[in-house]
């Protein structure tokens, strides 16, 4: 049985993880086909239809400017996924590079890079993201950069730890004694064997990125109105929590389901990739 087949078998046995994948696929469909799926223009106001409860015309009701919340959530999935993907690519690429350099070469470079991650770790994650946003200025793109930077040390640490384990394996020593250059060893022998932990972390990092985007938009630092971010919908809707609970309920559910799904996937990946898990 090849490695991938084994992985797939292990993963698909975990029904919750499959549910997570299904939710994320649904979200992807929403994001890709938003203009066709959304019944209304997400930023078009309609004063006559303000604060309407959920009906057949407006599945999730309308907000105070009469905008359709269902349409806004569908379009909001684009922002959430975009932020999740871009932020995580920034964090994984930069974090892995740091982790590989630190873990493989060790010595002074290791100490230097790890002290930098210590500094970044010293700040609470959301606070650091807020500080970066304050410097960069509010916009969705800057949220991606901020979340990316916040997650760099996490990926750096995880990568370094796996590299340290792999580096001392016999096959690496063998390659070294055969005179294979460092780059070759890193790319052919080390990275493929150190990826498991990073892959698990990616799904968790995406969940974090989506949550932070919501939090920053809630604070007015993220996605700017009238663009429909789930977080900013929560922020504006909370003043109407008693009169129009649907305005906060549905974006809240969207955030919850997405983050939940990503965590399920993360758990599933961890179990499937962990050789210690016994395959029954």
């Amino acid at each position, binding site marked *: 049985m090849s490695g991938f087949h084994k992985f797939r078998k292990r993963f698909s046995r975990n029904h919750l993880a499959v549910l997570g994948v299904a939710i994320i696929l649904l979200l992807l469909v929403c994001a890709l086909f938003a203009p066709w799926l959304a019944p209304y223009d997400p930023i078009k106001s309609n*004063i006559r239809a303000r604060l309407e409860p959920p009906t057949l015309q407006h599945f999730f009701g309308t907000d*105070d400017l009469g905008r359709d919340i269902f349409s806004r959530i569908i379009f909001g999935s684009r922002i959430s996924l975009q932020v999740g993907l871009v932020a995580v690519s920034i964090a994984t690429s930069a974090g892995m590079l740091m982790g590989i350099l630190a873990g493989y070469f060790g010595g002074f470079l290791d100490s230097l890079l790890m002290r930098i991650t210590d500094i970044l770790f010293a700040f609470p994650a959301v606070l650091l993201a807020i500080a970066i946003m304050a410097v960069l200025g509010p916009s969705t793109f800057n949220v991606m950069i901020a979340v990316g930077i916040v997650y760099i040390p996490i990926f750096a640490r995880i990568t370094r730890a796996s590299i340290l384990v792999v580096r001392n394996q016999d096959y690496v020593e063998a390659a070294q004694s055969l005179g294979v250059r460092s780059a070759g060893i890193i790319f052919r022998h080390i990275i493929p064997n150190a990826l498991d932990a990073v892959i698990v972390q990616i799904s968790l990092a995406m969940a974090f990125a989506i949550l932070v985007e919501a939090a920053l938009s809630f604070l*007015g630092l993220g996605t700017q109105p009238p663009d429909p971010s789930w977080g900013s919908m929560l922020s504006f809707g909370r003043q109407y929590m008693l009169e129009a609970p649907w305005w906060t309920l549905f974006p809240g559910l969207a955030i919850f389901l997405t983050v939940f799904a990503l965590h399920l996937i993360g758990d599933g990946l961890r179990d499937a990739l962990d050789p210690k898990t016994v395959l029954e």
Partner: protein
Amino acid sequence: MRLVGQNTRVFIVLIVVALGFVFAQEPKYGGTLTVALHGEIDTIDPHQSVTIVGNQVYQNIVESLVTPNANLDAMEPELATDWTISEDGLTYTFNLRQGVTFHNGQPFTSADVIYSYNRIMNPDFPAADASSFTMVEAIEAPDENTVVFKLAYPFGAFLSKLEQLWIIPNDESIDVEQNLVGTGPFAFKEWISGDHITLERFANYWDNGKPYLDAVVYRPIPEDATKLVELQTGGLNFISNVPYKDVAKLEQDTNLTVYRTLGVVRDHFGFNVNKPPFDNALVRQAMGYLIDREAIAEAIFEGHAQPAQIAIPESHWAFNPAIANTYTYDPAKAKELLTEAGYPDGFSATIKVSPTYPLEIKMAELIAEAGREIGVNFEIIQLEWSTWIDEVVSKGDFDTEIVLISGGMDPDDFFYQWHHSGEVFNLWRYSTPELDKMLEDARKASSQEERKALYYQIQDTLIKEAPMVHIVYNESIMASASNVKGFVMTGREDMTFKDVWIDQ
């Protein structure tokens, strides 16, 4: 006999009712008023504070020579009992109230007025309102109970500006920012930053018998929902800035009293006239036609607002009726003006707003939507409040902005500091020698007729040149527990508690 009996009974009932009425209206002593502030105050120092909340606190601790009446159209005696103005309008002589003491026991004299004035005018001191007194040439104290102001030129609004001369005792050793001492009805007790400010009843207050409350406690509560719940459950008995959507609900609650006035609180859409395309008056006028003021009043204020054309309220004596209804919602007209200005395909620009003023963000969204219809692409940028002030007010780094402005009594208050060259509050950087001259002449003109004519011209200019276009006048709304009596709301956001008492 029977007839007499009935008359007597009626008489007794009348007496009881009358007595009940008298007793009900007789203020009772005691109790603590717990007040929600909309945010944390900047400083307790009345000469430095620039925030509405700061003013709401210190106006109960310190007093001025004169104070505006509730309608904000005339000045009444406070620490001065009366005054005379010379024929030429250059000399103001004030007779000071006698027998007044400060909270620290020091008697109030003319030396305190001069000390307070010099503190504000000290060039090294960051006073908020020094520009109110630039026309004062000299201040003299012929004796303990008299103060004379000599002006360089007649200034019709001088009395109203004197409200800014808050009187503190002539004592350098008092740290005003830590322990404000005044002559007001309440004495400063403590300020725990972020938690509360406590004022205590001043027993030796000059206005006999007042105040009625034992103490006033202010708590900064920016979160609307928290504030409302605390008012309903008794944790607070006075709040300001009631959210518009909750007014109807609170008015139905018999345990609460709601206070509403349509005053001088107003929203505008302002343009950086140094930056294209807003250097073109036609473009700025076009923006005036992009604002659906009725829809904004309805959707954002639940009807608690009125369309506005200019800063000064329509009920003011200096309001120019000729400008009423100039700018209406008319995107076609806006498009026409843009074409005439050379932007037939529209343009892109930013609107800077702050989450401190969430309603203004909604206005920006509606304006941006109207703009899209005619090719104008507005990007909304929310900035944290201090960043907003830095970028918009200090650096002039913006295309357009929307923010709330409050305050003003004399017409000078509505125009000079907002539109004269070089003034800090001239956010839009619109400045011409003609407008400067009109603003200066209007200050110097002595008769109300003459001033009115000049302010009419100023309003004409501002409507045509449109460095900013107005959106709505907002109602100010406060609420208290229904047993809180005697509060009088002004058109500004004043919270003076000298006459307030609790029926308990």
